[in-house]
């Protein structure tokens, strides 16, 4: 299989296609962070970084994930695929860069600050329509779009990677999309954090 994953190379091979997307995302984010003076807080224009850091991000992340991938009668959403637990695995995983992990959490805090500015409420306190409006507004900025894109990527991982990593319980995501996984699948002892690397 050819692996053409150059940043300028639009390649129809989807095995390769993830890399340029991620790469574009990462390099763009790095550029933005550098432009903002080197911190994610500055990137998002946080006015009260200290207060924001003290807030538990996970309830907000839970609501955002459920909004991005809603549950429906015939198809699983963030709740059914254990997306929040999966995201905790990601945020604890040293194989994910510290910068990426911090970005997930801090972007959430920025979202709450934006919600306070515009609606005098945390994101959780908004109704569905206002949540959608706020996320659309978030996606209109490069940094906000990067953050949401990152969350959607991890949602898709939670939907479609091996259940051993905490998402996709009993292959619910695979069944929904009529996808046939390979075998053997990773399990206890063969998940990548457990390999003798």
């Amino acid at each position, binding site marked *: 299989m050819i692996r053409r994953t150059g940043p300028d190379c639009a390649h129809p091979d989807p095995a*390769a296609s993830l890399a340029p997307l991620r790469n574009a995302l990462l390099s763009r984010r790095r550029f933005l962070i550098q432009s903002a003076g080197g911190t994610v807080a500055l990137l998002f224009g946080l006015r009260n970084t200290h207060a924001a850091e003290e807030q538990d991000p996970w309830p907000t992340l839970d609501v955002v994930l459920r909004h991005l991938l809603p549950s429906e009668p015939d198809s699983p959403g963030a709740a059914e695929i254990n997306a929040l637990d999966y995201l905790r695995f990601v945020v604890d995983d040293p194989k994910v860069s510290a910068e990426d992990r911090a970005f997930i959490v801090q972007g959430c805090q920025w979202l709450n600050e934006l919600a306070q500015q515009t609606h005098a409420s945390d994101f959780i306190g908004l109704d569905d329509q206002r949540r959608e409006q706020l996320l659309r507004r978030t996606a209109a900025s490069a940094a906000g779009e990067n953050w949401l894109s990152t969350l959607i990527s991890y949602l898709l991982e939670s939907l479609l990677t091996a259940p051993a990593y905490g998402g996709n319980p009993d292959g619910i995501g695979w069944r929904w999309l009529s996808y046939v996984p390979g075998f053997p699948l990773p399990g206890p002892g063969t998940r990548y954090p457990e390999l003798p690397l």
Partner: protein
Amino acid sequence: MSRDFDVCVIGSGAGGGPIAYRLAEAGYSVVVLEKGPWLSEQHFTKDELACCRRAVYTPELRDEQHVIEQADGAAGWQSTPTQVSGWNFWNGNCVGGSSNFMSGYFHRLKPVDFKLRSTFGPIDGANVADWPIEYADLEPYYDMTEHLIGVSGKADAHANSESRSSADFPFPPTLEHPISARIDQAAAQLGFHSLRVPRAILSQPAMGRRACEYSGFCGSFGCSSGAKGSSRAALLDHAVASGRCEIRAHAKVTGIISDARGRISSVEYFDHEGKTRRVDAGIYVVACQAIETSRLLLSSVGPRFPDGLANNHGQVGRNLLFSGGGAGSGDLVFDDHDAAETAAMRVVGPFVNRALDDWYTLDDPQLGRVKGGIIEFLWDHPNAVARAENAKWHDGELVWGGPLKRRLEAWFRTDRTLNFEVFNDWLPNDDCFVGLDGRVLDRWGSPVAKVRIGAHPQDQRVGRFLAAKGEQLLRQLGARRVASSVGPAPPANLQAGGCRFGNTAEAAVLDADCRAHEVENLFVSDGSFMPTGGSVPYTFTIYANSFRVADRIVAQLGGARGQA
């Protein structure tokens, strides 16, 4: 003089494995130094996170990276560290190297590949050179590779097929997908001649390895049955079992030490604990994949080699090769077919195993008489998250919620995508080479490789010609949304050149036996030796040449030893 080993091999992939296997078989003691861990069948699963979304089988780019120089569009070159771009040039750093993760399309080079310069003449802007050996010199080693690595196939008559010393492959073809017969039919309708592709995958149990289990997850995954002919499964496991080969995993070589006479005296490496170690041997073989082989030689200065080992003529790192060409795809839409055809298309597991080899050389009104290439057909890679990622963008906007779910349903349920990959020569040129970066260091403090990736424009012209043929076949199959992409960006996993072999030290790093002209106890046995790369994936030829080099090393050491 007492030495630790007869032979020290740096790198355990397709270049290093045959040396270790044959030298151990001939009664010599061998040590193999491998930077990565020693994983085996029990560790390999069909895990998209491990294979393709986390740095599990390759280094973290923050620890080890490359600096890539691309044309800036204004006659200059722009350097970008890969930690910034994310463009990963590592292909598998563990025992067995990237051969663990290959797809195993095993096409031989053809006789014309050994003499491109004398066949087609010089090309402006390209450093095309004939090889110092001919097809007949390598043919016995292709045959040896087919038997020792385990190649499954059927030697069908084809007008462009090269000659063979064995009538057929040692193992029958792997199981084939229902689409393969349809490709044959479509090719015949177009007047093309489809070729059944030999695979380095066992179709039957043999040599202590299980047969393919047809999971449908092969390329970019490690093999959990042992059927794939990786250097580890096919060669190193046997070499270790002989009792004469020691593999040292987590051994990162930082320098090859040479003495005042210009001979290598030892190799220095860091072990898993970060301690500096040394090992010495009579003969040293470098096989770290092309970019890293050139980097190691350039880094290894000594009293006789101020500019790097074997580099007193400034040839190390020059004429790096990738593979020209590109790729295309078309969607076979289930609604266009009846239930039986749709069920057949949905089958997961058996291989497509089809290529077009009608244009290995071309005489075209626009292109003239030039070297062409091959077109390989394969199903869309099965990675699910990678496929789903395509659904999250629409017209440059992020999609989520219900619309994202409807797009996922469409992407997964309504069609199956058939791809093709074009392989044609990457013409060697002065703008494609390996150097050392002056600023970026790896985690051991060594300068990383700086790789300039300039491509010759003829590569894209030939690639587009072939891609048009691939598109034609997909349309004949009834595919929709047929498209292809041919560009100057190199595929990072198809590397060769940098230490070309040739008859003079002025123009080549290695002699015809792949021994360094300037260092009598140094051989290079990965794809670095190739002055031109041919128009097929490199692994088969790297294996074959490495078996050939192994015979030369045995001869230099005095022949096979009587074994207890």
